């Protein structure tokens, strides 16, 4: 709904002012739409990209992959799109929004996290979760689809008290101790630092999420967008991603 509001707002501004906003003083903006889970990593790499390309400002929009595809479909001006799963990149490709064939640049697996000190005494995806407050991602969003796939692969039934739309919402509920346990990406567990304890899931590999990146077809900065993709898929990008826990 926010998108429609924004579109309506933009339309109104155009109708009433008849003057689209002009860009700054010769500076070039590179707009990157990236899945929420890429937030700290891509922001770091964006700063490095700016340092290597004077006069270029990298602007990020971090959101759920599906929401980003919706925004692209509505004509949001983006140059690069990075999705947290293949399904959403396929949606964007099918809609003819992606310029070249998108490439997989990393993967992510799920893990169980508990508040620091594990007050509820959780031991893993087992009977220790009975009658405890488990929070997961909702089916349909990338991390939730992965959670469902993992539960099926491991032959277990999860009884969550909450199914969140964003993986960060799972994380914050565990960090604050509201929830006894949560299933998030390894990278979220790592980003959480000392606020949570991590209980690796044996067989987590059975539900590995692929991250794909591609240049947006409508981009007016095609060479620059291609260079950004190269940074991500290249040695430096992979190094930063691995440090954050991706591909592990």
């Amino acid at each position: 709904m926010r998108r429609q509001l924004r579109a309506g707002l933009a339309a109104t501004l155009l109708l009433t002012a008849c003057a689209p906003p002009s860009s700054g003083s010769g500076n070039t903006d590179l707009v990157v739409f990236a899945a929420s889970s890429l937030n700290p990593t891509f922001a770091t790499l964006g700063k490095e990209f700016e340092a290597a390309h004077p006069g270029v400002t990298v602007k990020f929009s971090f959101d759920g992959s599906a929401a980003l595809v919706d925004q692209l479909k509505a004509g949001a001006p983006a140059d690069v799109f990075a999705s947290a799963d293949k399904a959403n990149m396929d949606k964007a490709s099918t809609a003819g929004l992606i310029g070249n064939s998108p490439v997989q640049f990393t993967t992510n697996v799920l893990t169980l996290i508990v508040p620091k000190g594990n007050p509820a005494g959780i031991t893993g995806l087992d009977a220790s979760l009975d009658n405890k407050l488990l929070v997961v991602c909702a089916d349909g969003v990338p991390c939730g689809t992965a959670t469902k796939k993992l539960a099926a692969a491991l032959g277990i039934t999860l009884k969550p008290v909450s199914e969140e739309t964003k993986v960060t919402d799972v994380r914050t509920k565990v960090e604050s101790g509201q929830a006894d346990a949560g299933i998030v990406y390894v990278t979220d567990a790592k980003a959480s630092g000392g606020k949570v304890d991590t209980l690796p899931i044996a067989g987590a590999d059975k539900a590995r999420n692929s991250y794909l990146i591609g240049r947006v077809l409508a981009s007016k900065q095609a060479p620059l967008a291609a260079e950004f993709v190269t940074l991500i898929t290249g040695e430096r990008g992979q190094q930063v991603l691995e440090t954050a826990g991706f591909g592990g």
Partner: protein
Amino acid sequence: MIRPPLPRWLLLPVTAAVVFLGVPLVALLARVPWARLPALLSAPAALDAFWLSLRTCALTTLVALVLGLPLALLLSRGKGRWAAAGRTLATVPMVLPPVVAGLALLVALGRREPLGGWLAASGVDVAFTTTAVVIAQTFVAMPYLVVSVEGALRSTPDDYAIAAATLGASPTTVLRRVSLPLVAPAVASGAALAFARALGEFGATLTFAGSLQGTTRTLPLEIYLQREVDSDTAIALSVVLITIAALLVAVTARFSRGAWGQP
């Protein structure tokens, strides 16, 4: 006396205002998948969200009436520093960003916080329950009732209440037979506004109560989720919310017209 006409140039900003407010709603309606609408709205998740929203909002309105009316009565009589402080307290949740309201509730009633921990230990654990939804909604919605009723009370002349008291009516009788009936339209419109605000509550619920079908996932939370999963469903449910909101606003306007001092 005939009112002097408004200057014609006002039409320009007026048109801009109407376009500004109307375009997003029209844009949303234009995107509604009308053919699939019945199927989308009768999906179990959508129905659960709808009924949960209605149930929790009705309960919220009730709680807001029971707790908010006495507060409005007291504030309408208050003068000086304490009344000002009380009024500020009663209105701040209205203007808080929803996520801040959620954080405040979480810090107060969270399971690992002093108050919430004590409550949980005494057997009142609201984490991830429908009760938490009602608490979140009441926190942001009650101020609308308080402000609406207090304003009406202040603009109501005291003559009738004074007359009733002079004739020997007890304070409770004056309240029940005179003061409250006089502000009944404001109470009704305040209750409708509180219901509408509770219906739209999102941030505090998401932060504080969680999101589970049939338990805590109200209409706005279902829309938020479907935005990621199936945007057609999100738009279809948005139409439901807009319809209910429009009805509530119409009800409010109807009652406001009948308020004190106006025919």
